[in-house]
């Protein structure tokens, strides 16, 4: 029974890392109004939202099984209070930090209709801090991820996130401000329309 908790905690932790990677990439896609092949735009938002709630449930199992497991002693409060665990104080502390940020993001998102948008956005931008901290917690506290094909999975996640962030910044840099957007699109289409006429009107 004891080892079951330990294995469950390790497994759910790794699944949570994969899910959080997907959530971050989808969040970037939502921000840039991008689409997934075959899905309408609102489905990307829904997927982002639902996967984030799913990953939090995996993290809950991850935390509780680690606490219940008697192989090492981890106090429950160390899940939310950073650096409160005697075992792997630093690496588990990082896990608590990233979980706290995620909880703040979820609470502000659930209350989004009642909050001002600037506050919601400020808290949501912390995702870019939360993911690397969670990643460091995974690599640092898990011997599983430090070798073999699991290491390749972890490195793959990091590359995907890095690529998504670079794409996001490049896409934002390309963006025309709202007020100029209409004029830009308009100029492009009127110029091409003028080229298409094959003659002149006789009167």
């Amino acid at each position, binding site marked *: 029974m004891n080892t079951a908790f330990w294995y469950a905690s390790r497994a759910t932790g790794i699944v949570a890392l994969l899910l959080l990677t997907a959530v971050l990439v989808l969040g970037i896609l939502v921000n840039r109004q991008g689409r997934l092949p075959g899905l309408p735009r609102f489905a990307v938002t829904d997927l982002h939202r639902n996967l984030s709630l799913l990953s939090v449930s995996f993290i809950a199992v991850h935390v509780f099984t680690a606490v219940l497991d008697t192989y090492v002693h981890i106090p429950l409060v160390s899940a939310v209070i950073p650096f409160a665990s005697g075992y792997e104080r630093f690496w588990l502390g990082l896990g608590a930090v990233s979980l706290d940020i995620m909880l703040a993001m979820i609470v502000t998102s659930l209350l989004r209709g009642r909050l001002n948008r600037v506050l919601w956005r400020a808290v949501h931008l912390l995702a870019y801090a939360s993911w690397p901290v969670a990643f460091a917690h995974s690599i640092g506290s898990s011997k599983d991820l430090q070798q073999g094909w699991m290491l390749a999975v972890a490195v793959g996640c990091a590359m995907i996130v890095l690529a998504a962030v670079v794409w996001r910044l490049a896409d934002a840099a390309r963006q025309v401000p709202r007020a100029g957007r*209409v004029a830009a*699109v*308009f100029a*492009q*289409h009127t110029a091409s329309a003028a080229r*298409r006429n*094959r003659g002149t*009107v*006789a*009167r």
Partner: protein
Amino acid sequence: MSTAVNESAPGGAARQAAGLPRLLPAAPEDLHAHLARYGPTPYRGRTNLLIDDIETSGLTGRGGAAFPVYRKLAVVARAGVRQGRKVVVANGAESEPASRKDELLLGLAPNLVLDGLQLAAEAVGATEAHLYLHYAPGPQILRALAERSSRGLDRLAVTITQAPPRFLAGQEAAVVNRLGGGPALPTFQPPRVSERGLGGAPTLVQNVETLAHLALIARYGPRWFRAVGTSDEPGSMLTTIYRPDAKTHVREAAIGTPLEALLGAGADVQAWLVGGYHGTWLPMPEAAGITLDNASLRRFGAAAGAGVLAALPSDRCGLTEAARVTGYLAAESAGQCGPCLNGLPRIAAALAELAGAGHRRRTLADLERWSGLVKGRGACNHPDGTVRFVRSALTVFAPEIKRHARGQCSATDRRPFLPLPDGIPTREEDWT
């Protein structure tokens, strides 16, 4: 001020139904003249009391949407005061460039509009009143406000805010955004501004002509109001009329008046435009029997809108006119919703191609397809209104499209007919 001719004035060019004009005096009326004619503002002394009269009167919004006025009043009256506020706005931002009636009304009878604003505020229990205009307020308005406050006639002080000269600046949500200090941009509704508007407070936005009618109903009652118009669409409305004589006429007409009496239908007219630039082209002489009420106009897919009516002279090219207006409408997209931002410029460019010579064969089919794609997919009705205008132009000017395809045009006069402002917005400040 306006260069539009007030055709409704006694002795004006038009023959009028009994009792008209109701709104437009022959010359600007100051407070003294206003009080002599109408007496003091007929406050009811309590919220809600006026709303039943407005419901019986059948008054609808004269800003273009023809929404029943009592329903908006009732929603705002029922809503609680939020953050200590409840707001009433007189919307004079006549953002339709062809419409001149609100500006003329405010110049001639500012006190009637301001009476209506105060009465609507009382009826819904408002705590603040605004006047929203697309130009710096003229001397008649400023004088009326000063005279009213020195006489203690206004229960709420009126704040004036200037709108940017954008087509969408008069849209309800855009009005609220501008009054809140932001750009005059429409936003997705619901929540409707009548529930959560300025600063989150319930907000009643009514066109200035609507408020002038409301002020008269408060005085003379719903039966008086219903004495003209049709039984489904009672009352009168201000119209801005463009005829081949190249003058701009503003005329108060009973709803249900034959359009022929307003626009003329002689051989010098090839088509009518009803409802302005979000409106509908009607073929001549097929539509000649139609009347100025939505029940009659609906049969041609048209609506009276804000009362802009134009009779296109036979010597002009309707296709070219339609392309010019569509180009303007595309450039006035707020650029917020993808279908509008990307669709309208394509549609405008395709129409410009048709208005040139020798268009590609697939352009007409593209236009039809794109029109279907943008309809119903904006936060406001800008894409829908634009598509209505374009589709009716394609139908009414179909023979002209064929002519242009062969490199010919039937027009002998190349001067533009419908009025359009210069310049398109490129900076954020253009919207504030």
